[in-house]
């Protein structure tokens, strides 16, 4: 109740007020039970920083208490003069225990200053490891839950894709119909074209055969009409022409 923490947060005052209210006005409290409760309720205490001290053991509040009247050096002066008075009047006796206490204090200070930080770090590390080990289960559970939520949402999104599948199915049907239609159109076209081309080809073939036959006939007739006499005259003429050409 007298702790620095409670003092600083003023909960003591609130508690006193609540105590006073409860002892003096009972009916009022019964009617507004909710508001009374909120006054009485304390927030859960959490570990705070240790109080500030000077020189290791003198609280800062004592210095602040003196600051208004005597400034910065007030408490030091008080300490010095007080200790001078105590020593000179032998109210504080310097005997054997004092000197052993002094040596012990010196060794403690040296030990804390030298080993303190290292030891504190090591202990903090151990505590942190201990705490993470305890927290692991919570962290894991949170991760698993969040993953499961993500999975569920992904499943919902996937399920919606089925609508697109229906569209794809419709398109498949349309494609099949279209393929059939185009096939029919092409078949009709090709059949007609085949028949017309056939007729045209017949014509071509007939003309070609007639042409060949005619040529054969004409050549045969000409060949047969050449008498041997005419043949000899032709050859002589050819030779004469050749010789005239050679000369020219």
């Amino acid at each position, binding site marked *: 109740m007298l702790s620095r923490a409670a003092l600083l947060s003023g909960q003591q005052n609130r508690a006193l007020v609540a105590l006073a209210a409860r002892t003096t006005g009972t009916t009022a409290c019964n009617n507004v039970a909710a508001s009374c409760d909120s006054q009485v309720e304390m927030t*859960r205490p*959490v*570990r705070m920083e240790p109080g500030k001290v000077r020189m290791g053991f003198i609280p800062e509040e004592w210095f602040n208490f003196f600051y208004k009247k005597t400034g910065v050096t007030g408490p030091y002066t008080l300490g010095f003069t007080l200790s001078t008075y105590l020593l000179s009047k032998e109210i504080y006796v310097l005997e054997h225990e004092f000197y052993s206490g002094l040596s012990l204090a010196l060794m403690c200070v040296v030990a804390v200053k030298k080993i303190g930080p290292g030891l504190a770090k090591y202990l903090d590390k151990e505590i942190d490891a201990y*705490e993470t080990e*305890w*927290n692991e289960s*919570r962290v894991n*559970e*949170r991760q698993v*839950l*969040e993953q*499961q*939520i993500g999975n*569920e*949402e992904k*499943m*919902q*999104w*996937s*399920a*919606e*894709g*089925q*609508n*697109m*599948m*229906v*569209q*794809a*199915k*419709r*398109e*498949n*049907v*349309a*494609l*099949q*119909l*279209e*393929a*059939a*239609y*185009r*096939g*029919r*159109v*092409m078949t*009709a*076209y090709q059949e*007609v*074209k085949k*028949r*017309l081309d056939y*007729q*045209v080809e017949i*014509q071509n073939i007939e003309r070609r055969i007639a042409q060949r036959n005619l040529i054969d006939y004409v050549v045969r007739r000409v060949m047969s009409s050449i008498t041997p006499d005419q043949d000899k005259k032709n050859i002589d003429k050819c030779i004469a022409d050749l010789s005239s050409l050679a000369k020219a």
Partner: protein
Amino acid sequence: MAAKRISQSAINWASLAERVPEHQKNIFIAFKAKHDNYLRRVMANPESAPAIDWAFYKAKVPVAGMVDDFQKQYTALNIPYPPDNVSGQIDTLEKEIKSDIAKFKVESSARIEEYKKQLAHLSSLIPFDQMTMEDYRDAYPEQALDPINRPTFWPHGFEDQLENKDWSKEEEHH
């Protein structure tokens, strides 16, 4: 019903493929193969037949009136678009799918609510470094120390309780 001509795919296959869950990928690939097959068959033929040069044939073919006859019949030819018999099935399928999806969404949302509740419970727990032993009992009732309902054997370690005791290592006390 007016026949709808179609010449290419209007489906966004990439986004559809994204939505397919892992265990249905094979089915999806088979489905896409079918679709590609249909598309190929469509592409094999041109959209409409090329025009026939009637003047050329009229000049060439000697058979009287044959070309004219063909021309008349060909232009009068009207190839019917194949009827669509299965769209009704697709419509019923679509309705089924929609109701299935709605049902699944409801169940899935219920599960998500459950998970969210558990998450909220998790975050409402105070951190371990602020707990007292009483708080631990409030948060984890089954694991807290409870000598009345769940007494433990001395020396109260985990290995000394009956269900965990290793009887093969037990010494014989006389």
